[in-house]
């Protein structure tokens, strides 16, 4: 489904990803872990097509298409979703109106029929239950005055409604208490199927207790230095990232 080959990318002229390769098949859940500054967020933003990130070389193929050639909105319509680390507020824009516009633009792109207000409301209500969001959130401004945890839940709610083929979660677990963490995991687990893939980017292992990945990769200095099964996450939790850095340093020599 997603094929990243030898990707070099950065921001403001600074090279951050240095030859990253990763392959994700339909139905798989991958976790990318790594210390601060290893390039985790850069990877997430490059995949989503954020303009200020620059791709220097390498390829990213999504379902056979050249993902890097598409603008951000096209990638979203093709089924790439990014749950952001810092969701922004859009004051005065009704949360539910925003999401309806988003869903219908995705549906239109896929040649599916757009949902009317009633159909959409029904879908939204159903998905809100999954992430335990109160219905009052529907009519508030997008993320306007939301707490940190509410913003993250709102991201997962949007993901549930948009039903993406590939969901990228950029440190969605940061700053969440244990209840919110569980809710986020429930939302992501509900999405899991043989057609959906998930890429979880995280610093800590704790989300991975609820959201058991098929593969865990360790990112250091802009490339994947170690891959393994879910037990790798536990190992990292116990030993920290230092030993990885040392291994990577050795490998670089």
């Amino acid at each position, binding site marked *: 489904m997603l094929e990243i080959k030898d990707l070099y990318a950065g921001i403001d002229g600074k090279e951050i990803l240095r030859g990253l390769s990763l392959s994700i098949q339909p139905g798989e859940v991958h976790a990318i872990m790594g210390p601060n500054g290893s390039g985790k967020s850069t990877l997430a933003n490059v995949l989503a097509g954020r303009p200020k990130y620059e791709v220097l070389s390498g390829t990213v193929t999504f379902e056979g298409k050249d993902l890097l050639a598409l603008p*951000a909105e096209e990638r*979203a319509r093709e089924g790439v979703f990014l749950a952001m680390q810092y969701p*922004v507020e*859009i*004051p005065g824009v*009704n949360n539910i109106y925003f999401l309806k516009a*988003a869903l219908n*633009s995705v549906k239109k792109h896929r040649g599916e029929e757009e949902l009317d207000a009633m159909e959409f409301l029904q879908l939204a209500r159903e998905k809100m239950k999954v992430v335990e969001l109160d219905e009052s959130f529907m009519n508030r*401004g997008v993320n306007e005055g939301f707490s940190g945890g509410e913003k993250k839940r709102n991201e997962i709610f949007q993901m549930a409604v*948009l039903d993406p083929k590939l969901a990228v979660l950029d440190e969605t677990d940061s700053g969440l208490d244990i209840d919110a963490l569980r809710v986020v995991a429930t939302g992501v687990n509900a999405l899991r199927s043989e057609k959906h893939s998930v890429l979880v980017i995280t610093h800590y292992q704790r989300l991975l207790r609820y959201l058991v990945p098929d593969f865990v990769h360790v990112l250091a200095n802009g490339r994947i230095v170690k891959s393994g099964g879910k037990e790798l996450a536990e190992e990292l939790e116990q030993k920290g990232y230092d030993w990885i850095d040392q291994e990577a340093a050795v490998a670089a020599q």
Partner: protein
Amino acid sequence: MSNAAIQEIASQDYKYGFVTDIESDTAPPGLSEDIIRFISAKKEEPQWLLDWRLKSFRHWLTMKEPTWANVHYPPIDYQATSYYSAPKKKKILNSLDEVDPELRATFDKLGISLDEQKRLSGVAVDAVFDSVSVATTFRAELAKVGVIFCSFSEAVREHPDLVRKYLGSVVPYTDNFFATLNSAVFTDGSFCYIPKGVRCPMELSTYFRINQANTGQFERTLIVADEGASVSYLEGCTAPMRDENQLHAAVVELVALDGASIKYSTVQNWYPGDKNGKGGIYNFVTKRGKAFNRSKISWTQVETGSAITWKYPSCILQGDDSVGEFYSVALTNNYQQADTGTKMIHIGRNTRSTIVSKGISAGRGQQTYRGEVKIMKNAENARNYSQCDSLLLGDKCGAHTFPYIEVRNSTATMEHEASTSKIGEDQLFYCQQRGISAEDAVSMIVNGFCREVFRELPMEFAVEAQKLLGVSLEGSVG
């Protein structure tokens, strides 16, 4: 997605820029007592009104054009403008069916139906073309409840006592350069009187259209809501695209007697000039309302047009417990300039006022909020809440805020909030990442920004305003 995208969304073409080919009666350019006599004679006015005009003109000659506004334009040659233009008509109209088909077609094209049967929304319209009111709909229906809604000229003929009593009672002929000029040369406009205790059964609306080249438009609107009466009034305006600037100096006076309420909404879409700042309307307008005991005056404006806007719809809260409101969205794109805001003068006790101003700048637009809140000595327990927010699109535009506050009574409560924000790369990216195009995202963000004002507009106007904002911003994102 970057500034280039923002630039692109902000530059859609002005779609009301056509010219109607119609024979007009136009006065030669220039301003003199003779011209004023000519206008007055054309309109078969009584002597008192001619005297008032001449008095205004003589006062105007002693005045200087104000320069304090934060707008820049070359000097206006007041002798090069024609002060009267009217579509030629053969006789007095007895019914709407007799309106010139060309004129009818013009208003149809603008989406203003003068056909009462076709009009489902129940809005009575007074259509003003160049200087003259061409048709007023639903008059019979309004007359049933005693509401007078007609052109200003007609009011002078049919209801001289009312006009004489209230004309200049809110904006005196000595008020300011442009209002005084208007007092001397105004040609037509709308007049509206709601009798005691009557709630006007439909929205009243005036649609202004400038057509002739080299003419100024000077209309005058007077609305009087008698004790306990209420009315909602809408005003819309467009003009053809022309390379030269045209002057529009209107005066609107509102009188809300004890317990009355007037809601005045404007969607101003005069031709703003082209992308390089050539042409466009100079919109120098004086709007003011006087509120007596327990009455309420509410201004709502959406200002997207004009090359230059100079406009401060104000409330004189003379009576005790009177309420003044000002809700404004002003947008400047390309080379447009706007210096707009309000004045709330608290004279009576327990007077309250609310100001919500939203300024949006794109392209090289310059936007100034200028507001004055004055609490006079006897205004016990006066309250004001002001909020002015500015939104910038791109990095070549500007937003300025000049709030003046003058308090002479220590029991007053004042609140003032202000903010300036930019449509951020992160907001746009957030929308795009959800599949929403950059254009839709900008219009969504801008509409969200204006939401508090739009919800004050009557329903159909709110929809129009949202669309207009989208159009005016087209091309400002790239």
